[in-house]
């Protein structure tokens, strides 16, 4: 029941022209973070007393959490459903989730007024607050993600600890420590994997509960008591498309062979999942009779139609087509549409739908808000690239690979 890891650190040149571009974007974000820390939130954002939450909460946090759903959805299918053919995609998905949540947490710290009190929710509880639930779950889940990643670190370094100079004497103890850690993780990993899935389901849905308390300030097209369910279902449906998109981009970027077989197997789940989400979204609209708002031509109705058409209907049709399932490029496009749809949905929920009753001007994010969000994404991509080159994350092509209890654990 044990096999060899066929994941390996990718060998490639780190700095390419694209990477330089990303570094510049990331550096810009660092400058904006500094400005925010020195001059306050008001100096870099267009937030106001009428619009307290903007792009950073809507996209960096709202969409960030949703788009990191690949982590728990693949863990669920590969480990809980124990489908071995999917083990090769668990590590890339885990890494994305880990980086995604790290940036969600960083964005929250930038956005809250008193970033140095970020630990307060750990000891000051308010069980009535949906935000409290999201905060606690995200903190615990982030820890779980790091624990799930540890076996990859031990795998990389066991037998390879080679410190320079006088630190050499530490090589053996560190190696020994890593081996003990490894054994400990090996026996307890299922506990963390299940916890990760439960925590994800909880906070993905509670993220939807967040805006319910805004009541009539939220446009009726989005304001519904089943928002938590819609958020959860959309997180289910966006998890695999994220994995598919990433696999495609990594294959292109590192010139690897497309893992067509695994990917199209995975893609088969997307259609039904997206279909369920679509059914609930439409059902909710019919039951609450909010379709009347679609007859008027407003920003809200336009955004809603774009979200529905390009984010759900078109990709749903694509994922149900046999020829699309066979083509890496078509799958990439369809997955990108789903991702766009969920990102757009979070943006709409947190920003477009939010109509403060008293306001002078409609909120539009400032250039700095955009630059920070873009810079953080660039940062994440850079770290992803660095991690797959340092750690054994991406699997070699033959994944008949004997497997394992946990894909995150592939050692003998």
């Amino acid at each position, binding site marked *: 029941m044990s096999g060899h890891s066929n994941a390996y650190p990718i060998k490639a040149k780190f700095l390419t022209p694209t990477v330089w571009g990303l570094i510049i974007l990331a550096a810009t974000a660092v400058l904006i973070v500094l400005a925010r820390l020195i001059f306050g*939130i008001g100096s870099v954002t267009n937030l106001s*007393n009428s619009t307290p939450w903007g792009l950073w909460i809507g996209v960096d946090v709202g969409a960030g959490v949703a788009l990191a759903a690949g982590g728990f959805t693949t863990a669920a299918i590969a480990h809980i459903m124990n489908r071995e053919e999917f083990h090769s995609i668990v590590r890339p998905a885990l890494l994305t989730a880990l980086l995604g949540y790290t940036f969600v947490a960083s964005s929250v710290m930038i956005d809250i007024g008193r970033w140095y009190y970020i630990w307060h929710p750990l000891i000051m509880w308010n069980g009535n607050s*949906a935000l409290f639930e999201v905060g606690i779950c995200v903190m615990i889940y982030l820890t779980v993600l790091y624990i799930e990643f540890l076996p990859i670190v031990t795998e990389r370094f066991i037998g390879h600890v080679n410190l320079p100079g006088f630190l050499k004497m530490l090589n053996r103890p560190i190696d020994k420590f890593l081996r003990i850690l490894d054994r400990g993780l090996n026996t307890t990993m299922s506990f963390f994997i299940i916890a990760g899935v439960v925590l994800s389901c909880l906070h993905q849905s509670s993220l939807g509960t967040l805006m319910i308390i805004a009541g009539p300030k939220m446009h009726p097209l989005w304001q519904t008591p089943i928002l938590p369910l819609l958020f959860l279902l959309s997180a289910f449906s966006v998890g695999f498309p994220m994995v598919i998109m990433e696999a495609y981009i990594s294959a292109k970027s590192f010139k690897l062979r497309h893992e067509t077989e695994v990917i199209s197997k995975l893609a088969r789940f997307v259609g039904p999942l997206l279909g369920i989400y679509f059914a609930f979204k439409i059902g909710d609209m019919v039951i609450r009779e909010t379709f009347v708002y679609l007859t008027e031509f407003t920003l809200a109705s336009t955004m809603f139609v774009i979200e529905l058409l390009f984010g759900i209907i078109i990709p749903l049709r694509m994922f149900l087509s046999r020829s699309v399932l066979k083509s890496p490029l078509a799958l990439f496009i369809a997955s990108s549409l789903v991702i766009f749809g969920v990102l757009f949905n979070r943006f709409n929920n947190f920003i477009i739908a939010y109509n403060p009753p008293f306001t002078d001007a409609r909120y539009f994010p400032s250039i700095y808000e955009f630059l920070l969000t873009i810079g953080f994404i660039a940062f994440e991509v850079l770290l992803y690239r660095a991690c797959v080159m340092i750690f054994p994350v991406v699997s070699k092509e033959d994944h008949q690979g004997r497997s394992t209890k946990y894909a995150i654990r592939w050692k003998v």
Partner: protein
Amino acid sequence: MSTISRRSFIKTGIAAGSVMLASPKDARPAEVKTLPPDRRGVLVDTTVCIGCRRCEWACKNAHSLPAGDITDYDDESVFANKRRPDDKALTIVNRYEKIGDERFPTNVKIQCMHCEQPACLSACIVGAFKKDDTGAVVWDTDKCIGCRYCMVACPFQIPAFEYEKALDPKIMKCDFCIDRQKNGELPACVEICPAEALTFGKRSELITLAHRKIELFPERYYNKVYGEAEVGGTSWLYLASREFMELGFLKLGTNPAPGVSESIQHGIFAYFVPPIAFYALLGGVMWLNKNRNRGEE
């Protein structure tokens, strides 16, 4: 294993079903904190207010905000715009002209309504808000992390944030002069009001008083006490000569301000039973699958 087996499909179904169980359907309302019967309130009679804005001045002084000279407040040009309370002025007065009769405009003082069941209190991630026994909804600077969820939640769009401050920005809103009240003093705005448009007292008595006024002068008052039932009731109550929506008041339902959000929250987390059950279920599914695979090998 190229197609989904019926067995794994059923398992997926069970997993999905248990998530659905945790949805709003089995939601229960959260417990409502019982408020002391003698909690205070203020009745604002907008038919009496003369728009002198002395309350704005007194409020700033009572809260150590830059207030300027009291004569500055005689300037009526500010009425050209409809203003909102913010981090520099916790209360403001707006003027609404009466179409066809400019001699009798209506002046409306705006500040925190001090809800009976406040949305800010329910929303706050760290529980920094408290509904005091006096009726005041107060904010605790030692807890607040500055997330501004209270501002998202407030149905009256009242809490303001000090966006310009890099360190220790505060949530600013009327605190019903809780410190003055504890010292046996009146709220600053009530104390200074020269027209006696503001009446401070027990909320229950103010409601009786308001209805009595409407009963005695039906031609003077629009037959409604704003705040008696809105979002489950507020400590501040208003009387007006015309339809409240014409005077910048929001049309809000009578359900408590936190709405269904708390019920959903408590539905998902009913004593941690749904999450633990879900955990156990996933553990079971995982175990079954592992054994199945072992059997096949």
